[in-house]
């Protein structure tokens, strides 16, 4: 008897490998998300400072400056040339995500991911299937829109709405009515469309997706001959279109999932009952 809380897309994986292994990457992701938020929270809460600031810009152990490259870009477009810590910090963060996969930010760091995953889980459990078709490219146009707005107003435009910043600040310094935006994202994902926010609208994800097109760490469908067409990976994947070329290609086609939209979340690895997928790098496809 399977436990009720296990999502449908993991059931085959759980039957083949047990609950623990079918949640391995999910667990690592959640731990990373909690860890990243926690190092910012110990200071304000306990007076023990590991990282100061928040994801927009921060200082790690009083030594390393980190900055969000998307916010940095909006600042540039709005005609402010930041001073050195923000420049080096943005380059460093961009370099890290070029290494580990651009949208690894979405799957492994962003706190809104927990909200949207929860909404998706509730969609499964409540049988809500209503799915307004949104174009996945919309987020790229919104991304362009935020840069236009930054240039027009001379502000960091997306930060007036960004639920990602709102939610992390909620944990680090607290928010009041900003919860409304987080709730809106949850309801959008629950009632309007499957994975509406992260996979269709969020310009932050779109930006990191562009970085991810060249990233080193990738998921590979190394044993694609073993695929039984059970569909578990497509069900669990927030961006199912990225899997197709790697899994269904033939002959010399690459088995790496190279699409920038892939979050490197490892959901496909967790859910697959026959071990088709691996977390690997471009060097070892």
């Amino acid at each position, binding site marked *: 008897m399977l436990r009720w809380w296990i999502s449908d897309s993991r059931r085959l994986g759980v039957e083949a490998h047990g609950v623990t292994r079918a949640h391995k990457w999910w667990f690592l992701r959640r731990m990373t998300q909690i860890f990243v938020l926690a190092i910012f929270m110990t200071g304000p809460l306990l007076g023990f400072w590991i990282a*100061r600031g928040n994801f927009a810009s921060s200082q790690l152990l009083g030594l390393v400056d980190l900055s969000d490259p998307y916010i940095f870009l909006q*600042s540039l477009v709005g005609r*402010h040339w930041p001073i050195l810590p*923000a420049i080096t910090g943005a380059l460093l963060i961009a370099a890290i995500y070029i290494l580990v996969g651009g949208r690894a930010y979405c799957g492994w760091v962003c706190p809104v991911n927990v909200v949207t995953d929860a909404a998706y889980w509730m969609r499964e459990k409540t049988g809500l299937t209503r799915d307004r078709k949104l174009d996945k490219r919309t987020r790229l146009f*919104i991304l362009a829109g935020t840069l236009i707005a930054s240039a027009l107003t001379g502000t*960091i*435009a997306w930060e007036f709405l960004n639920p990602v910043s709102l939610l992390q600040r909620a944990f680090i310094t607290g928010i009041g009515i900003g919860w409304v935006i987080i709730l809106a994202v949850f309801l959008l994902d629950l009632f309007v469309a499957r994975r509406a926010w992260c996979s269709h609208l969020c310009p932050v994800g779109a930006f990191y997706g562009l970085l991810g097109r060249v990233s080193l760490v990738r998921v590979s469908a190394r044993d694609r001959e073993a695929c039984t067409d059970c569909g578990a990976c497509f069900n669990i994947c927030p961006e199912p*279109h990225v899997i197709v070329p790697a899994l269904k290609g033939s002959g010399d086609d690459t088995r790496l999932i190279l699409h920038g939209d892939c979050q490197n979340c490892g959901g496909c690895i967790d859910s697959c009952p026959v071990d088709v997928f691996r977390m690997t790098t471009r060097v070892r496809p």
Partner: protein
Amino acid sequence: MAPSKRKVTRRQALTETAKAAGVACLGGFSLAAFIKSADPVDARALRPPGALSEAAFQVACVHCGLCVEACPYGTLSLAEWGEGAPLGTPFFTARETPCYMCKDIPCAKACPTGALDRDLPSIRDANMGVAVLVGHETCLNYKGLNCSICVRVCPIRGEAISLEDQEINGRKLKIPVVHSDKCTGCGTCEKQCVLGHAAIRVLPRDLGLGGKGRNRAGRNF
């Protein structure tokens, strides 16, 4: 994302490009309009020491909160919705917690983007705002008392606010007068004012001093 191998006619390509550009522009202009609805010219929020002018601050500040965490007195906070400063930007409310004018200016030193000037030579050069005596009917000194709390608590003692002899309606009074060239807008006077609402308030400099204007004939003054 559409598969790259599909056949696209010129007409489809043009329509899709126009649609995409339309969505981007509509989104961009709407967001711009939303932002402009909070016009920085009328901003009342007091910024940390060394802050750029309000318009320049809006594009330089990334809302990271490093200044907030650097302040040893908990003066600063990042604005939430409806708090009078644009969402996420640092500000302080003088009546609650004023700026204590640290000599080493830790908040400005912590700023990673240049929104606060790290090289501000002295905290006395900080321009957070300017104190304005707004309570000309309620200020106790105007009523003939010698309250002078604001003068006595001012950290730039005797320079930023002083008591001046004035004769009002035939009475000799000692009236607190702010010297705007010395006042940094730290807000200590506003914090300590004994009235229910402070009779002396710190406002952003443009708002507090009136600023330059132009009459209908076009003459500047």
